[in-house]
């Protein structure tokens, strides 16, 4: 089974020190203080790809659209069991919406003859939840979004899509197909030292615009159907009353409030 898994490098928004500030252009954010990690859902997608390979044999190709800095997350996926990688990198790719991104990803995997393409269900930064489904449409293969369980049947896959309230919709889907992987369906492994050592020898093929065979007007903003033109700070209603002081003081104030409200 040949599997491609798409991984995105995103700012670590679970880090309390990651501040999101709109830059002077209004179209970007100040990235200087970000620490970067693999997108949460992509981490589960990588694990699913490796589990499939371990059970059914085959090969896992890690695919990314990003700059050299993204090699960090690519190498980690290779260390966990990915076999090779493709990184699509060109300044013309900047500003791509999910359609343009899917087009770039497709160019990166079209010659691989994949049986299964996995993406995350949602990127934690811009969160379109659309790239995987768009990719399937471009590849003209069936897809399923928010997939939490994958089981290989005879020539098809049995998958569980997670819906609101945690309800699983079980479907059967033929290959080749694209699955967008939801978090929590497996236990992403840690890379071993041996894996990390071996990953440094694995190939990361870099493709620029020319190598993709796409034209300038198919990528970036030009190739997008919807463009983010201006960031703004959300207008929020009433914020919480912030209790001031050190932990002892705030805890004391809170205990007092809870008592007053009859909650203690």
């Amino acid at each position: 089974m040949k599997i491609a898994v798409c991984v995105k490098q995103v700012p670590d928004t679970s880090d309390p020190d990651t501040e999101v500030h709109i830059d002077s252009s209004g179209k970007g954010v100040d990235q200087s203080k970000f620490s970067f990690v693999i997108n949460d859902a992509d981490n589960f997608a990588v694990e699913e790809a490796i589990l499939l390979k371990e059970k059914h044999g085959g090969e896992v190709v890690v695919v990314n659209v990003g700059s050299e800095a993204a090699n960090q997350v690519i190498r980690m996926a290779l260390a966990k069991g990915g076999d090779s990688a493709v990184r699509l990198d060109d300044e013309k790719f900047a500003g791509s919406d999910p359609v343009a991104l899917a087009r770039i990803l497709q160019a990166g995997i079209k010659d691989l003859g994949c049986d299964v393409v996995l993406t995350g269900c949602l990127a934690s930064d811009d969160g379109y939840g659309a790239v995987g489904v768009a990719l399937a449409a471009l590849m003209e293969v069936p897809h399923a979004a928010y997939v939490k369980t994958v089981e290989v049947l005879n020539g098809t896959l049995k998958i569980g899509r997670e819906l609101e309230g945690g309800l699983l919709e079980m479907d059967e889907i033929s290959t080749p197909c694209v699955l967008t992987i939801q978090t929590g369906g497996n236990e992403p492994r840690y890379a071993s030292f041996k894996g990390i050592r071996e990953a440094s020898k694995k190939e990361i093929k870099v493709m620029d615009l020319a190598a993709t065979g796409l034209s300038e007007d198919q990528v970036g903003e030009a190739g997008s159907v919807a463009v983010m033109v201006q960031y703004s700070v959300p207008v929020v209603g009433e914020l919480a009353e912030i209790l001031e002081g050190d932990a002892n003081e705030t805890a004391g104030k809170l205990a007092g409030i809870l008592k007053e409200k009859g909650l203690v």
Partner: protein
Amino acid sequence: MHEIFVLAEHRQGELRDINFEMLTLAGKFDSKVTTVLLGSGVDDFASKLAPFSDKVLVVDDPMFESFNALDYQAALKALIEQEKPHLVIIPNTGQGADILASLALAMEASFTSDIIGLEIEGDKPVATRAFYGGKINGRIEFKDADLYMVGLREGAIPAGEGTKSGEIVKVDNPVGATAENRKFLEYVQPEIGDVDITQSAMLVSVGRGIREDKNLPMIEDLAKLLGADVSGSRAVVDAGWLPTDRQVGISGKTVKPKLYLALGISGAFQHVTGMKGSDVVVAVNKDPDAPIFQYADYGIVDDLLKVVPAMIDKIKELKG
């Protein structure tokens, strides 16, 4: 905008709330609002949707008893080609997100997903979406097209009252045969555990901010003192630190306790959807910009690993 299509969502015999949110959004524009209802034996749904629609276009066929993205897409494609709406609003849900991008590409429509707001400027829609877990918003402009499509986030638009009485029009199923390469099998209900957090009077809820599961006993101590149950965000459940049935949020449980104490939870919309009906919300988070503070009554900007032990002490003192 001449005509707006709204795709109705139903599941296991129930119309979902998002329908009335989408229809309220569509209703604020000066356009004909057509609700597209694909289902089997759905007369009752059609009559519930009619007060919010100028027309309810119904395809009543056993093919649509359950959701299948490929069949839905084929039907919508045919109906859109026939009626030529200018805007299609789809729920940004487990069903809707499974068709939005592929349908839009098939229709050569300009689209975006997970919007929280929409305006029409000139004859074109302009959308608002949230970025970076709700920390900033972005304005989305579309490339000129004959058709625009958007996926609306659940809970983003408060549903209004239905004041119309749209005609219900049944049409033949435009799809010849169900898709060969994807088939619906069955629904599997989530597991039920020992505690039903939807009934809890108080919840101490933890997020990824607790860092390691070895910090859980301290959370349990605090919960025990308060007489509360422990719940958590999806991140904590994904990590295996709490069982699935303790998850609060859109893909977990909707809770409405008297006290919801959110510890190290950022306040992603998928989480907030499940807890915003709580009476008193208290958030402890190290990040003063965490969106959870928008939904909390009281906030503490500090390390929860310091605040929780201090709270345990203070509450013990109170209780004497």
